[in-house]
């Protein structure tokens, strides 16, 4: 950790930026004001869910690189419910929207998962290709089906008020998605560490051959792990629609997929570590945005810090092995 900050600091200094002030901005923006903290929590929600959607299949040593597509499928699914049934009362519409979104994400992942199960096609490839298909779908619904003519950027018309997630704090606004996300993370942790299916999942990843010999349906476990991963990303998409945007916006997937993968890898697949890493990355992301505003340091600078953290974490494994 420390080494990556030093390395990135030297790089920043070489480019002529004020290094101590830059780091103060990156690290403390989240904790200085209530607004900064809420911004961090809002980033934390999708990051946590996307990191889990990568980490759960990773436990079975399957790589889900399709979180972006699954998030968008979830967003489109929940927005469809929110727009088409906008007259329904909130106690029906909100859960229906969230559930449809989660299901859509699961379906989006189910295709690559089934291709792996049935034909043995490498899941890295198919999950990625599904991302690009989802971009086209989002563009289609935001420019043709539910286009908002008032918006300059491809955007859909808003969902019904009944589909909005309630606010926990009204100013600065923090929606109830944080409770859902943390609840899901705890549930996933108990599923993996305390249930038979979770144990079989870990065993499959640790040694597929031994698992197969001991009667674990290895291929079915991989199928289910990928679908569960898709459901988590779909849930993230549904929460983004119901809690943050209240509509579909092109580009709403941001860079959550990449950061989710990064978080999963830094946590080295450990489900318990994922929320803490996700929160730290959310702090860095919010800090980097402030840095761009105040000191004109490009946003991507923080990627280099994050990339270096990842490299050092991975290297520490090698050192420990010796």
């Amino acid at each position: 950790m420390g080494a990556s900050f030093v390395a990135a600091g030297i790089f920043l200094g070489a480019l002529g930026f004020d290094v101590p002030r830059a780091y103060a901005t990156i690290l403390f923006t989240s904790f200085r004001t209530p607004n900064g903290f809420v911004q961090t929590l809002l980033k934390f929600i999708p990051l946590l869910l996307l990191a889990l959607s990568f980490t759960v299949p990773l436990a079975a040593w399957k790589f889900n690189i399709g979180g972006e597509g699954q998030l968008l499928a979830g967003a489109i699914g929940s927005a469809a419910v929110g727009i088409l049934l906008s007259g329904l009362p909130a106690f029906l519409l909100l859960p229906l929207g969230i559930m449809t979104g989660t299901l859509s994400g699961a379906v989006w992942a189910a295709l690559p998962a089934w291709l792996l199960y049935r034909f043995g096609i490498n899941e890295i490839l198919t999950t990625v290709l599904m991302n690009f298909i989802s971009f086209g779908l989002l563009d289609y619904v935001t420019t043709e089906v539910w286009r908002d003519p008032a918006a300059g950027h491809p955007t859909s018309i808003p969902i019904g008020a009944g589909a909005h997630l309630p606010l926990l704090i009204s100013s600065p606004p923090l929606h109830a998605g944080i409770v859902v996300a943390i609840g899901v993370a705890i549930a996933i942790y108990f599923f993996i560490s305390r249930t038979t299916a979770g144990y079989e999942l870990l065993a499959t990843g640790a040694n597929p051959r031994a698992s197969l010999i001991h009667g674990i349906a290895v291929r079915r476990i991989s199928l289910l792990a990928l679908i569960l991963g898709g459901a988590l990303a779909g849930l993230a998409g549904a929460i983004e629609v119901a809690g943050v945007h209240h509509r579909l916006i092109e580009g709403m997937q941001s860079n959550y997929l990449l950061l989710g993968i990064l978080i999963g890898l830094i946590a080295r697949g450990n489900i318990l570590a994922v929320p803490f890493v996700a929160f730290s990355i959310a702090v860095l992301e919010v800090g980097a945005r402030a840095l761009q505003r105040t000191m004109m340091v490009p946003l991507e600078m923080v990627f280099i810090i994050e990339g270096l953290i990842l490299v050092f974490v991975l290297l520490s494994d090698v050192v420990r092995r010796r």
Partner: protein
Amino acid sequence: MDVFVLFSKLVMLTLVPYVLASQGTMLGGRAGVFNVAQEGIMLAGASVGFLGAYLSGGNLVQGALLAMVMGGLFGLALAYFTTTLKMDQFVIGLALFFIGLALSTLLYKLVVGVTLTPPLIPTLQELPLPGLSHIPVLGEVLFKQNILVYLAILLSLALYVFLYHTGPGMALRAVGENPMAADSLGVNVSAMRYLATISGSMLIGLAGAYLPMVYTGTFTEGMVRGRGWLSIALTFFGGWSPHLIFLGSLFFAAVEVLAFRVQVTGVGVPYQFVLMLPYVATILVMLPTFRRLRIPAFLGRNYDRERRALL
């Protein structure tokens, strides 16, 4: 120009990044190193290639060389982490993908900054081959292209000869099939893996640089648009052999050209669905073929000569 001739000519032009990236992937894979960072390496190559040409006042050769050096650095990192440190190839590949993607945008922003109109470099011109380019139809399609089209064709031929008709090529294939056997015959397994991974990644970097140098004249974020991932699929279709990869890339290029033409002219289908075509087609083609494909037996694994048996 006849529609068919124009179409074929465009296919040959569009073929290049697929051929370069897939042959690069194939080279590393033949030594057992499965690179999954193509998308990131191509983006870094596109960015560095553009910047190299832009800063030298439009010198495309310098841009292309820089992109290859950049690719080579990624290859060196991949080879070091997997071959020397024996870390998981997918994990390292994904990390490098992330770094390449971040680096591409960061370098562009640091050098060019935010501008209203994108800075442009001159695009690569056609280089008609004397004599040959006057052959009807064939001359137009094959011999009136930019230099990298010729390079892609010659490279595929050269790789075919190298892999199947030379000693070092055979040694390379042995390293990817059974490194223990190769090692016992005196082949330097590590050196082979390093060389193949680095030279393969240099090709992938060049594939990235092709995009700003031929298509757009400038760098835009995410401009590779999945071509890196598609080239992995292509390498699988081609059974990790250079001649079949070349044939497969004809298909990928044809789909891309078709999608582009249909988007411009329109056929009553919303253009978004046409843009999905390359990705949908790739998944569909994988369905019947994937199981039957031949892959290097040691693909994606790391060789440790001090271990007694290969699991």
